[in-house]
């Protein structure tokens, strides 16, 4: 919807809102409607030219004295519209899809609240509303999810058994949960890690077990991290490597933070990128995972490392290797 359409929608909601909130300060109206006070004043000036006719009593009357002197709003002669309009299909769909997304992360009693809110919302939409929109979150363990969400709500410390993404290791740590959020289709816990003495993000599907310790979280004056900070953005300490990608590996460009470089030999379908990651070990695993379609250009130490790992892995397939002996 265009800007003037938005303004009309807002003004149509202002009329009943202001009649139900006599003498409300302009600043509060602006906050409730998510616009600037100047915008509300502009809306009010326009409203004074509207009504069911053009004679006194037929036009909406705004008390300009109170508006200028005290920054509060009184309107009169607007009895013809005391309720807001139904939701438009566009508004309805946006909220319905958002509610479904909330529902996907809800547990226990929250589910019933979201469901009844959804049902009531659907009755509030004018006309038919179809929302052919699905939001699919990755599977994670429901009991672990419930434990984490409940502990976050109650302010309880958690003991997590966690498998990190970068290193192949499982750790047990105590954390003070701060909030749960979803990013790129996956659920995360933001928590103060007592071991790292810093804020950390924990991906739900990497949590092996979660248990409340019975202690309450400690209050800490830590600024909340902006969503995405250190999670998907490239830090200063990031490692990087130059890789050539065969066509079968071009999808990597859409998935990981890369800078695309000039192709080595234009026309053969290979693309050259600089890929950023938390460390070179992670890149080594990525190359091994996609061996044959991802080729290391530099650093040469990474190329040698990949070959070393591959050779020693192949050696394990010789029958007399200790790993396969009982």
């Amino acid at each position: 919807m265009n800007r003037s359409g938005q303004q009309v929608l807002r003004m149509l909601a202002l009329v009943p809102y202001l009649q139900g909130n006599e003498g409300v300060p302009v600043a509060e109206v602006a906050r409730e409607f998510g616009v600037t006070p100047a915008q509300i004043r502009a809306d009010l000036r326009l409203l004074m030219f509207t009504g069911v006719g053009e004679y006194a009593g037929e036009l909406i009357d705004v008390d300009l004295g109170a508006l200028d002197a005290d920054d509060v709003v009184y309107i009169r002669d607007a009895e013809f519209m005391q309720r807001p309009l139904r939701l438009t299909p566009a508004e309805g769909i946006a909220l319905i899809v958002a509610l479904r997304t909330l529902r996907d992360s809800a547990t226990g009693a929250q589910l019933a609240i979201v469901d009844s809110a959804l049902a009531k919302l659907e009755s509030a939409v004018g006309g038919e509303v179809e929302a052919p929109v699905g939001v699919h979150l990755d599977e994670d363990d429901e009991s672990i999810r419930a434990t984490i969400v409940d502990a976050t709500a109650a302010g309880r410390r958690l003991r997590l058994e966690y498998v990190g993404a970068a290193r192949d290791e499982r750790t047990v740590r105590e954390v003070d949960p701060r909030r749960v959020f979803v990013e790129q289709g996956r659920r995360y816990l933001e928590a103060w890690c007592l071991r790292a003495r810093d804020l950390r993000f924990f991906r739900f599907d990497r949590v092996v077990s979660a248990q409340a310790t019975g202690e309450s979280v400690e209050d800490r004056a830590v600024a909340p991290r902006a969503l995405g900070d250190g999670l998907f953005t490239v830090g200063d300490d990031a490692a990087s490597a130059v890789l050539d990608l065969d066509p079968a590996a071009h999808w990597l460009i859409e998935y990981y933070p890369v800078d695309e470089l000039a192709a080595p030999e234009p026309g053969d379908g290979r693309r050259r990128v600089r890929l950023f990651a938390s460390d070179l070990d992670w890149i080594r695993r990525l190359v091994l995972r996609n061996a044959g379609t991802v080729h290391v250009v530099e650093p040469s130490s990474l190329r040698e490392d990949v070959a070393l790992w591959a050779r020693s892995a192949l050696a394990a397939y010789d029958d007399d290797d200790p790993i396969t002996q009982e």
Partner: protein
Amino acid sequence: MNLIFTLLSTRQYLSKEQLRQAIADYRDSSQQAFERKFERDKEELRELGITVETGSNDKYFDDEPGYRIRRDAVELPDLSLSREEAAVLGLAAQVWEHAGLAQDSMSALVKLKAAGVTIDTDVVRMAEPKLSANEPAFDAAWDACTRRVPVAFDYRRPGQDPSRRHVQPWGIVSWRGRWYLTGHDTDRDAPRVFRLSRVVGEIATDGAPGSYDVPDDADVQAAAASFLPSSPDRSAVLRIRRDRGQGLRRSAESSRVVTDEVDEVVVPYASGWDLAAEIASYGPDVVVLEPADLRAAVVDRLRAAVRDAS
């Protein structure tokens, strides 16, 4: 606005001429300009979700049709929201990280507030999911799905030149933060799933809104399930070094100690290709005992890595 207010405040149908007399802007216009403005305003009302009824005050006389807005059809009914339900709607309005949809959510919320609903999101504490949509093609795809508009667009699969596709959209799905369009590909006469980030340029409309039906069994989620991981139907037996291969151990069916250094772990899987890639990434820490085809797939991959370095 005056048209809305005037039509709202009448129980009778008002004829076009009566409306023209009642509203100054119409009255002061030429006949032609009035007709144009009236049509434009009616269209705007439709976009706002306001249905203007046409009808006649006297069903026995075939007089000029009149217009009115039925209050109960356009006014927001009393939803009797509990504090918790109102809070959940408030949280829902914060889900979208997309300019247009955040705006739509916000103006929906504003209407609820105008109806006297108090929204205090602190009443419930729950996860705060976010939905974003950075694909340039998202807005057009969203619009096409919600209004059932056939579309045409250039689509580039990795490593191929873009090709023109003609699609009757069924729905869009978010998976791992990316948006996919599902629908009937009319050239291939089959259902297809398109990743919006692979759409090149603009999505063009290719027919009238509502000009096709979405089949009843076209469950959007199910159509999209074609690219979701399927359920495991096989198992692999792996030897994994102690404390290593944690990603594989997480999905293990069973595990037994073989030596001080090594465990034997049974891992269910659906795609041998994906599992072979995962196993290769652990290098010497994970070795496949069986099945043989998985073992061969891992060895192939490792040989390719060695070849690359020489």
